[in-house]
Each structure stands twice: as structure tokens, then as C-alpha cells.
């Protein structure tokens, strides 16, 4: 429960609630004026964490050398391989397959299923278990323009506007035009979308959308999709073999510059393995566990940008890796759920962000970067945040409005995960608001691909959060769940087609790793700095210092 001094602020929220409810009943979502282009720019420039002085720096090695990237990403890329590749016998692979998929979130599993159905043999490698991913944790929804008053064209405009018109247009076109088909594909696999009585989709708006096109499966949308895909992977043993607890730590090229394999590492038996493949799909997700600028994160334990590192070392180029998505509403109280996601669907259903005095200060459904920056402004510049007992600061998200607007029981029915999360810590969000602050949520950028999901390295495909370009420098709610499926399927299909045509393999090589490491060494970076880091490290210093085998940044195995 909230301590007494916080309850005093909650009383002010309760006092303004009837008026705000009246406003919502009269004006729908438009309870506060949306920002103009110049207002958006001003709040971003002054308050978004990406625009802080040391948020970015020049990367000194690799294809993007000289470009300004998020500091933590540049640090990660300027690193050595986990092992000296000389120890591997590339001519005697442990596994041979048509398509190697790296990562088993929704993008990787959609790719594996699609390639399998298209007739290819698939090897699916994941460093934890099937389905262990950010996909599984997504709550709010999946966008697709399937309503009568909507169209892929309007969806296109929303995606571009959210991304500040810098997105790669061909990818956005693929995303929005494939949207309805992706929903149908999922439904035929057995995803239980929320429906109205007549079978029509129950849709909600999201930040920065001009229509309601958010499809959901309660507030377990990511799980509602990902667990179905996982079940389907289990059901295709003849086409899909999978390796769990197997991290891919390096790619193998051939002398023609094609991607033809990878080095795997089993986290438990500590064995390395050589995998040969006609096509490779990287679907390793994002980087939340790098804790950029010290932010808490909503991300899965395994979100350490491994795929980004190995693709970059092999010569793939990155786009928009100077941009980080902070989700406006991460929990800041109680301490045990610090940084956890409070889904945007809470605002889609009418909850309003209000300050210490219970006053509205922003349109509740701005695109995420704008909304997050406005929250930071309210706390930092205006001093209207609410302090927690441990010195953090937050904004009230007035969740009791949800039942008042949508009818009693709405929170229970459509936001069970959220209700359960807070109930575990004795807070009833139907009665009391939740305290939130921006939290590190999503990797906007990633590896550049074309609309088949292929990178500039022949045979190397990327899908899901590891892709850069679809969302520009800011993704909208529900477009990630959609891109996982759209580009998972596209990359799966084209990777499979490539394998079917037959690849003329040249001599397998890991020369790119040596070449890259030489450049890193020239920067006098200490040898112990290695990547991919595989898992984050939360062991406290006083214990760490006694773990003498902990030689390098990152994990100790």
C-alpha cells in the first residue's frame, strides 16, 4: 500500500477526478490538447534522454564508423569475440541446415514456422527457452488497419509521423499492407483476439494513432501470440529442430562474403558448435538489459543485443542506433516492480496521467517519445512529480477512471495482468492510481534490411526488434507485435526460398572476426571487453570481487 504522505497526493487526484471524468465523457480521448510539431520538438530537445549531452558518441570501428550511436551501444560494439575462432574446424560442422534462425521470440518462431511450411529444414537456436523474449511480455496490443473507417494508408501516416518521417518507407509499406493478413494468419493458428458479440475485433487507440486499430488478447497480447507460435514450433518436429540454452556468439561467412553459418555455445555444457546454413535469420530482439543511462527496463533478462553485435562484426550496417525508446509508464512504486511495464492500453482505456496536484498536463496518447519527455518535464522542470520513499519520482496514472468510463469490471476483464501485478503488492489499481515514470523499453534502431528482411550480406536476414528502419526513431504502440509477424514471415519465406534455390558455398571463414578485432585492439581497448554479453550481471560488487573467475564485462560463464 502507499505510505501516508503519498496518500495525501492521491487525495488531490481523487478531488480532480470527477471533473476529468466528465471531460472524458464529453470529449473522449481528447482531454488535453495534442502538441503541435514545434511543441513536440521542444519537449524532445529539452527532456528526452536521447538528447542529453553524453547520450551518444561516435563509434570507432565497423561499417558505421564515425556515426554517432547511443553511448552504451558504441561501447558494446567496440569489443572482442568471446573466443579465438582459430579453434573451430569449419569444415566439419556439428549441424547443417537450410535455415538457421537465431532467437525464439515471436519473430524468430514466425520465421521458423514459415520457412518450415515452405519446405525448408530449420534449426532454431535460442540462448534461453523457446518463447523467452520481449514478445512474450508485450501487453497492450497489435496494430492492423482492418476497421471500416481505417486503411493501411492512414496506418502508414501514423507510423511515419510517430517515427518523425525518417522511417524506411518500403518497410513501412510492407508493415501496414501486410497488417490485416498477419492478424488472419495468427487467428488461423489459434490466437484468441478480443472480440465484440458480433465477431468484430474489439479495437482500442494507441499513442499517436488516428484510428482505433489496436487488437488485443486481454493485456497478455504478446503472450497470447507467442505461446501459440511456440506450440506450433513444437508441433513441427520434422521441419524445425530447436536448440535451447544455445547462444550464437559469431557468424561464419564464406570467401564470397555470404553468411553461411554460425558458432553456437551451450550455456550449460559449455560446448561450442559449428553450424552451417544456407540462410540465417537473426531474431535476437533488443537491448533493454544494457540499462542505457542507468534506466530500469521492461525488457526480458536476455535482451542484450547479441544479434546486433555479431551482425555488425560480420559487416552488416545499422540504422537509427542513436535512438532509444523509453516507455512513458514504467512502475516506480513499489520498489520490487521498479521499471516494470504498465501497458499503454491503460491509457487507451481512458486512464489519465496527472501530476502531484491531480492536474492533467499532457494529451494521454501522444507518441511514446513525446509522452515520456512530457512526463520528465513535469517532474524535472515543473517539480510536479511525486517522490517515492527511496527518492525516485513519478507521475500518477489514474487507473480508477477505467471502470468509471468503461463500466465496472472493465479493468478485471481487460487488464488482468496489471491488476494482478499490483495486487501482489497490496495495491488495488481499481481504487488507487499507479505511480509511473519512463522506463527503457525498446530498441528503435537495428540492422538495416530490405522488404524481404535481407541485409546487405547475402544470406543474412533480420526480423523483429533487431531490425532498424521500420519505426524510424520512435515506434508506436502495437507496431512491434505487428512487425514481428510481418517481417518474421517475410524473412522466413525469403530465407527458405534462397535455400531452395541452392547456395554455392565458398570456403568458410571467420576472417571478419580477426579483422574486426585488429581494429578494436588499435583503440587500446582492454582484451577482457567481450561481446555478445549473453546475459546481464546483477551480482553485487562485494560478492563479485570474490568471484575470481569473473574475467570480463558481462556474464561469467
Amino acid at each position, binding site marked *: 500500500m502507499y505510505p501516508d504522505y503519498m496518500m495525501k497526493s492521491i487525495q488531490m487526484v481523487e478531488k480532480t477526478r470527477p471533473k476529468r471524468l466528465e471531460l472524458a465523457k464529453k470529449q473522449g480521448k481528447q482531454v488535453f490538447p495534442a502538441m503541435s*510539431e514545434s511543441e513536440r520538438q521542444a519537449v524532445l530537445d529539452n527532456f528526452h534522454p536521447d538528447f542529453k549531452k553524453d547520450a551518444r558518441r561516435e563509434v570507432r570501428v565497423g561499417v558505421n564508423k564515425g556515426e554517432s550511436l547511443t553511448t552504451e551501444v558504441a561501447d558494446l560494439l567496440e569489443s572482442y569475440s568471446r573466443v579465438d575462432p582459430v579453434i573451430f574446424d569449419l569444415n566439419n560442422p556439428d549441424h547443417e541446415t537450410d535455415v538457421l534462425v537465431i532467437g525464439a521470440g515471436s519473430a524468430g518462431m514466425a520465421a521458423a514456422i514459415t520457412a518450415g511450411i515452405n519446405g525448408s529444414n530449420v534449426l532454431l537456436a535460442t540462448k534461453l527457452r523457446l518463447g523467452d523474449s520481449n514478445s512474450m511480455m508485450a501487453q497492450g496490443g497489435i496494430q492492423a488497419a482492418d476497421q471500416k473507417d481505417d486503411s493501411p494508408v492512414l496506418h502508414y501516416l501514423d507510423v511515419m*509521423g510517430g517515427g518523425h518521417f525518417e522511417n524506411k518507407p518500403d518497410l513501412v509499406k510492407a508493415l501496414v*499492407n501486410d497488417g*490485416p493478413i498477419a492478424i*488472419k494468419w495468427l487467428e488461423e493458428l489459434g490466437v484468441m483476439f478480443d472480440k465484440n458479440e458480433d465477431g*468484430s*475485433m474489439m479495437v482500442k487507440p494507441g499513442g499517436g494513432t488516428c484510428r482505433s486499430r489496436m487488437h488485443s488478447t486481454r493485456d497478455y497480447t504478446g503472450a497470447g501470440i507467442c505461446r501459440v507460435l511456440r506450440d506450433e514450433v513444437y508441433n513441427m518436429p520434422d521441419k524445425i529442430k530447436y536448440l535451447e540454452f544455445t547462444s550464437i556468439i559469431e557468424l561464419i561467412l564464406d570467401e564470397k562474403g555470404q553468411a553461411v553459418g554460425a558458432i553456437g555455445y551451450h550455456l550449460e555444457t559449455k560446448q561450442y558448435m559449428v553450424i552451417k546454413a544456407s540462410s540465417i535469420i537473426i531474431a535476437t530482439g533488443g537491448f533493454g538489459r544494457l540499462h542505457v543511462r542507468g534506466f530500469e527496463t521492461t525488457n526480458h533478462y536476455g535482451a542484450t543485443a547479441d544479434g546486433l553485435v555479431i551482425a555488425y562484426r560480420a559487416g552488416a550496417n545499422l540504422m537509427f542506433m542513436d535512438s532509444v525508446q523509453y516507455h512513458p509508464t514504467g512502475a516506480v512504486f513499489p520498489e520490487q516492480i521498479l521499471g516494470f511495464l504498465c501497458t499503454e492500453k491503460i491509457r487507451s482505456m481512458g486512464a489519465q496521467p496527472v501530476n502531484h496536484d491531480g492536474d492533467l498536463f499532457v494529451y494521454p496518447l501522444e507518441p511514446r517519445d513525446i509522452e515520456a519527455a512530457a512526463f520528465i518535464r513535469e517532474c524535472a522542470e515543473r517539480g510536479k512529480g511525486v517522490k517515492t520513499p527511496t527518492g525516485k519520482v513519478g507521475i500518477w496514472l489514474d487507473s480508477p477512471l477505467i471502470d468509471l468510463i468503461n463500466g465496472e469490471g472493465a479493468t478485471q476483464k481487460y487488464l488482468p495482468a496489471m491488476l*494482478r501485478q499490483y495486487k501482489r503488492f497490496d495495491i488495488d489499481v481499481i481504487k488507487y492510481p499507479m505511480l509511473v515514470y519512463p522506463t527503457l523499453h525498446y530498441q528503435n534502431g537495428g540492422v538495416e534490411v530490405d522488404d524481404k528482411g535481407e541485409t546487405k550480406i547475402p544470406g543474412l536476414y533480420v526480423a523483429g526488434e533487431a531490425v532498424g528502419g521500420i519505426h524510424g526513431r520512435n515506434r508506436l504502440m502495437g507496431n512491434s507485435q505487428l512487425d514481428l509477424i510481418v517481417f518474421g514471415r517475410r524473412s522466413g519465406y525469403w530465407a527458405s526460398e534462397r535455400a531452395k534455390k541452392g547456395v554455392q558455398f565458398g570456403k568458410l571463414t571467420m576472417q571478419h572476426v580477426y579483422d574486426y578485432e585488429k581494429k578494436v585492439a588499435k583503440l587500446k581497448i582492454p582484451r577482457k571487453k567481450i561481446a555478445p554479453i549473453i546475459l546481464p550481471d546483477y551480482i553485487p560488487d562485494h560478492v563479485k570481487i570474490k568471484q575470481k573467475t569473473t574475467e570480463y564485462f558481462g556474464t561469467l560463464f
Partner: protein
Amino acid sequence: MSEEQKMVKAFIMGEAYDVPEGSTIIMAMEYAGFQMKRGVGCREGFCGACATVYREKGDYKLKGGLACQTVVTDGMTLAQIPFVPAEKPIYDIKELTPDIDTIKTLFPTIFRCVACNTCTKACPQEIKVMDYVQALKRGDIGRAADLSFDCIRCGLCALRCPSEIVQYNAATLAQRLYGRYLNKKSPELEERIVEVENGKYEKELDELVEMPREEQSKRYYAREIKLK
């Protein structure tokens, strides 16, 4: 946390460690020095990787929970469950019928349920597990799918079941059957797919793809916002 951190004693797999008061089980294990690979996942209660069995001080009861959601109490003894060796039948969802025959064929163990309610008591999501098992016995796929929807597949129900039922895999089947066969179809979705497949939006989208940024921005800020 505060300057004077209060500590509690946790017996992690039987060994005593002092850990900060208020820690979840995951936090406590990491504080103690465990670099976790199994028994940890999303850390937010969505993935089911961190099923834990524990006993609280002075209590004989063996309880189940999620390590990322359960706060350590002084004197708690606990262990993480690395894996649940549960049966999972292979099927082609396209070939099935959404009825009791499918349940009988794929999950015959469901009918061994003795209604002891141990599964429901074991569920960290507070799902009425036994009730959905009973619904499956009656062939009520819709009710089973609805009741089991929030299941995160941690496996605690199956581990405690005296009748060797794998409840959560049966729940997945029920949900998929409902989603594919029983959930009413959306006519708008079907219509839109026909339009997309006939290339209705190609031309306009291609124009946008080529459109200069300023013009796109103008169209964006001028678009009408109509939210349900």
C-alpha cells in the same frame, strides 16, 4: 534502498544467506551471488520460467510461486525449478475439431482428474485450474480457454497433480481451438484482406513512399483523429 538496509535470512536450496529485506526471490539469489540461467526469465511475471517451491518459517506447507513476484520472508527455504518434464502431444491444429473427442484423443489424462483442487491452490496466477480441467472433461472448450487464459506455463500445477495431468498444455490446446474455430470471425477483416490482396492500397501507398517529408508531415498533422 535506505542507508540502513535491513536484512533477512533466506535458505536458498538449504543454505543460509543474508539478503536485503523486501527482495524478491530472484533479487535475493542474485544478491547472494547466483548467476542465473534457468529459473529466471522475463522477471515481470509473464514467461513462467521462474517457478519456485518454498516453505516459510514455522510453516509445514510447501508453497509455489514465481521467483520474480514473490518477496523473501525471514527464514524462508526455497528452490528454483529448472524444467518441467511434461508431455506435449503433437498435433496439426488444422485437422482438429473443437470438441471433447479431441480432448479425449490428445489429453486422455484429463479424465483422471480427481477434483482435489491441488492445481488451483498451486497456481501463482490464481487461475481456477481445476475448474478449467472440469470444463475440458465436459468438452466446454470456450470455458476452458477463458478460465485458463492468463496461464503463463510455469508448470506448478502439473508438478503437484496426483493424476499426472499436464493442465497447461491442455489449456494451450483449448485456447488454440477456441481462437481458430469458435471465436466468431470478423467480417471487416475478411473484406480488408480481399482489398489488400487486390492491390487496392498499392498506388496510394507508393505515392506516400515517394512523397517528400514536408508534404507527408502536412498530411499527417492535418489527418482527422477519430478514436473509438
